[in-house]
């Protein structure tokens, strides 16, 4: 069956176009997200990122990757039979094995929804080599041949600007289009 994969981005800001379809990944994507009011999508060939105040302050990043795509820092891989907890472990091991993620501290690790799907939620803090501190809330799930993730990253320096509610809305609106 010929695959028909697509992306629909609903935008509400003057900066971004109204509707966008097509694929922006090396691999085409088949999920749908809504761009929150006053947030802008950052154009990129490889990521779907949205931000309000600039990505060094806070951003939401959505990724879709094939299950068999190798990671950069761990040789662990996803497989189809994994529970969400086991998938979370692979993600955490990838991050913890990255030498540039310093002072990594896991705050939370548990089951959670991503859209209507069962997945996991991990919350962690870390510092960059320049000493900048960040907090990340990371939701992920395995479905079919793909791993999907939606993460919110915020600089601890700008925690007064945090947009947790916005992130929750993005999570709840996340949909996978069956192909």
């Amino acid at each position: 069956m010929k695959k028909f994969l697509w992306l629909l981005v609903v935008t509400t800001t003057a900066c971004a176009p109204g509707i966008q379809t097509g694929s922006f990944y090396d691999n085409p994507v088949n999920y749908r997200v809504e761009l929150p009011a006053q947030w802008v999508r950052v154009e990129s060939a490889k990521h779907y990122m949205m931000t309000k105040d600039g990505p060094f302050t806070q951003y939401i990043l959505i990724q879709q990757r094939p299950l068999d795509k190798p990671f950069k820092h761990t040789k662990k891989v996803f497989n189809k039979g994994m529970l969400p907890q086991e998938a979370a472990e692979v993600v955490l091991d990838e991050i913890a094995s990255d030498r540039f993620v310093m002072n990594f501290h896991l705050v939370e690790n548990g089951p959670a929804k991503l859209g209507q799907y069962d997945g996991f939620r991990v919350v962690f803090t870390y510092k960059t080599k320049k000493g900048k501190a960040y907090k990340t809330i990371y939701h992920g799930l395995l479905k079919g041949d793909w791993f999907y993730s939606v993460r919110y990253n915020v600089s601890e320096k700008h925690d007064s600007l945090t947009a947790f509610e916005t992130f929750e809305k993005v999570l709840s609106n996340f949909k996978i289009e069956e192909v």
Partner: protein
Amino acid sequence: MSMIKSQAFILIISLLIGGCTTARQSLPEAPDLKGVEISLLERAEREQALLEQSGFLYEDQNLDDYLNAVVKRLHPPTIQSQTLPIVKVIKDPRVNAFVLPNGVIFVHTGILARLDNEAQLAALLAHEMIHYMNRHAFKDFDRFENRRFGEGAQRRFQGLLDRLGAGFAMVVMAGYSQTQETEADIEGLALVANTGYDPREAIRLFEHLKREAETEKYREYLFFGIHPRIDKRIENCETFIKEHWPADKKGILNRRIFLEKTRELVLVNTFLDLKAGRYRSAQMGAEKYLDLKKDDARAYYIMGEIFKHSGGAAEMDKVMEFYEKAIFINPMYPEPYKAIGLIHYKGGAWDLAKQAFESYLTLSPQITDRDYILGYLKSCQREGV
């Protein structure tokens, strides 16, 4: 998924969003040697502070004292005026070591865990000490700065690298010339022999490095990666030994004390190997640890994890045996209960899964993955118990 890749992306995007234009700046005049030295030392101090505050430092005062005592023993009395190098250990399973220009030697747990005795450790430390004592970083500053990225590119991208954290340590490792590396090998070997250690053990060190390179298929700038070819280094060592060390002479090995001091580190490094998915290295580490301490539940648990990840369904009986052995040795150790619970849960053996998960929660009620376990218990209840 990669944090660094994401950060690079963010940086580029920030520049685009800002819409800023970058003015081309003329490069400053090359600083005199004094300025270069100060600059290098300042950067080394910053890098040291960064590593010490990164959460990567392996903190074991007893081990640190031991490693620094070996350095002191190796340090030649003729240059006592120079500051004694200091050794620190980094939690990183990759086989690596490097010295900063201020004399601080960082050794990865990965290389310490592979060594067999103090003579091999001495060969490793002596190599780094020669880089420091012969001031290689200062002597070849241009190469040191530009080796990895090319002269123009390195200057152009220095700001980017700094922001991304691609740091000084990497430049240190990539910066020495092959001549300097050979010098560090040969003069280091002389230090080892003069101190009474058996220099033939340096060859074993290189063999460890070679095996590691082959096993993990390194592509990075590591201790051996940018050095002259390992076979050539072994050849240089053999020539030195033939000329300076009688065949029937016995040197110091200090195997027992070395293994005693590094035993716990071997297990910690095995967990790091497991996290990194380096299963063959993890297995070698776990087996080495079990040779040293046969009754540690953690080692059997980790063997189970290694075979679960690397062996698949065919190895499941062996996996269960390791977990059960871990529980037999230490019934209060929670991890194997969870591991057994997951196997039964995925196999639909709900009652066995329930028992194992309940034991896990009883032993570790505050564990971070508690909500997953509670969810499994609900499913077990619903599905059949």
